[in-house]
């Protein structure tokens, strides 16, 4: 039973991880908590749904398309909204993304009705049994997809010039600007990249999860906790934080009481904030 719970928790954590990585990236570069992140996940889920319905492309294979679509959507949103608030007071940054999230969710309900939809059968389906442990294959496929995308993002940030510029900005904005890094362009790019992560998560999630306008709000909230847990601005930390939350949710739900599983998750978050405010892998100052 314990192994089953650990497996389920890790699978859940992998899904949370992509969402939180994008969130962390955006925070690191422009100091914006993107409250609309869940809404972007939802948009990607609808994109994957229509990809499946109209073009007969499996959501797993649709993932690269979703990544591209959401990347450009992210850049567009940056150009239209984010760049005007990024240097404004903290509250206006907060409210801009908050409002954007509200708008997107209600737009989805207006366009696609509040009905629940699911993709009938993804190309990967069924359950894999090892002894008494059951692994749901669609979840496994999505988790592997998440890890793959996460690894690519990680490599990108570490190895490319643009990636290093992103790192430089999250470390020291002023210094980076003085070194000749084009802040605006990198910010637009990383916002797009963060949203693209949400896009990948949405498309992968669509293989086994139902889809409706408000589906991802709670995912967005959990991702926020994962980011805080792992350390704001640290992409690896966000990944780790998400895995921990997945484990806490299933193990806590089983051994403590499902009533308290979210309370438990937020309690751990509070503990971390009190003992190590910069998060598990966060850098020094907050």
């Amino acid at each position: 039973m314990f192994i089953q719970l650990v497996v389920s928790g890790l699978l859940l954590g992998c899904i949370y991880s992509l969402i939180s990585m994008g969130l962390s990236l955006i925070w690191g570069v422009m100091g914006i908590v993107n409250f609309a992140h869940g809404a972007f996940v939802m948009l990607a889920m609808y994109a994957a749904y229509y990809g499946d319905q109209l073009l007969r492309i499996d959501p797993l294979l649709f993932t690269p398309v979703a990544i591209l679509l959401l990347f450009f959507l992210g850049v567009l949103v940056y150009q239209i909204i984010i760049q005007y608030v990024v240097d404004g007071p903290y509250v206006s940054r907060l409210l801009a993304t908050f409002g954007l999230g509200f708008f997107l969710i209600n737009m989805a309900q207006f366009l696609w009705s509040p009905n629940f939809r699911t993709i009938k059968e993804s190309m990967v389906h069924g359950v894999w049994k090892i002894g008494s442990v059951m692994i749901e294959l669609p979840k496994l496929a999505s988790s592997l997809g998440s890890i793959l995308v996460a690894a690519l993002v990680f490599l990108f940030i570490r190895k490319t010039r643009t990636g290093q510029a992103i790192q430089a900005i999250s470390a020291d904005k002023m210094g980076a600007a003085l070194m000749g890094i084009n802040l605006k362009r990198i910010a637009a790019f990383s916002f797009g990249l963060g949203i693209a992560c949400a896009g990948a998560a949405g498309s992968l999630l669509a293989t086994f999860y139902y889809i409706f306008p408000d589906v991802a709000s709670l995912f967005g909230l959990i991702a926020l906790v994962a980011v805080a847990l792992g350390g704001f601005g640290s992409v690896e930390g966000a990944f780790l934080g998400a895995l921990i939350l997945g484990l806490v949710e299933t193990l806590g739900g089983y051994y403590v009481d499902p009533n308290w599983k979210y309370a438990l998750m937020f309690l751990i978050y509070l503990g971390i904030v009190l003992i190590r405010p910069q998060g598990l892998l966060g850098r020094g100052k907050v």
Partner: protein
Amino acid sequence: MKRVTRFLWVAFLAIVLIGSLYAGGGKEEAKGAPKTIKLGAIYPLTGGIAVTGADCKSGVEMAIDIINNKYDIDFPFARTEGIPNLGGAKLEVVFADSRGDATQGMAEAERLITQDKIVAMVGGYQSAVVKTISVATERLRIPYVLSDATSPTLTERGFKYFFRVIPHDGIQAKNALDMIRDIEKKENVPLKKIALIWENTEWGSNVAVQVRKYAQDYGMTIVADIGYPNRTTDLTAEVMRIKASQPDVLIHPGYISDAILFVKTLKSMDVVPKVFVGMAAYVEPNFLQTLGNDGNYIFTRAVYGLDLAKAKPFIAKINELYKQKYGRDMSANAARSFTAPFVMADAINRAKSLDPDAIQKALMETNLPASAFISPYEGCKFDPVTHDNIYARSLYLQIQNQQYRVVWPFDLAPVPYQFPFKPWKER
């Protein structure tokens, strides 16, 4: 100094604007005999269970259509237009969105009463939200007839203006266990071990209280008793607990997103009880559309089923009208919401007035026959203390071949129930 003057200007403008709004409102009220009577209805029109809210709203709209227009159906208010005793005044419903949130529900109720000037309230879906809405209507003296939410605590508060037509969870939970006992006797298979999983807001947790109470009386044991936060992202841990307890019977009061997630998780973890009773979400059209064959064999409580048309022919006619308008059969949820406007219209008609106390008095004297309901109720008369309908009773449906069929009580059932619950792989 400049800033002060500017501030004064803005304040002045604001006062003029707000004042003119109020003046406008006042004028409308002074028009004498009412042409329209405004009712309020608050449902979760956005958020996690927006699809349910939309379904309920369609039931209210259908009822208002029948009351306001002429139809050739043997049903109260169908052959007349509007409220006859008030010069044929038409009903108008102002809908508001609770977003499934209790705080929001109360705020919207206050807005409907103070700004939209509704004379009465109908509907409301989640018990937790109805609880706060009814606090507002009670305080502001607005009669409220509820035909959707079922938590027993709603009518235990001794409110003066609050009335409920639908049977509460105590009756419905007892009926569920009655049905399980009937099946047990007929099939000669022990159905004693119950796993109970409930969403932990007002409604689900109170259903759990009622099920526990009656299970004890009936000599059944609760082998798993699991509450979970509604709108959860994952139910694996909960399902693992159920699996470990090896129940005969599974009972789940839940809202739509949890119910879909729950059935999917049961399937992937291959948990197969002998009897599976779902409540609330399980009667929704969207639930079945989403799950297809995986919904089969599930029992669900309801106060409506198209099968009732045999005993009450007007049900088929009303369903036909509904189908023309919305392109699908009336669901059990829409049917629940359909009821309250008629009970309210009947009271207003007898009160011959829009005065809240006159309507309240008429509601106390309500005595409607079974033929005024599309539900299996034997009529409607409110208990003088709790204001619950003393003639209310519930049905149990089973999903067979992706259709909701009435299977309990046995004397109302056109088809037999199917037993046991078929393993997921064999569908």
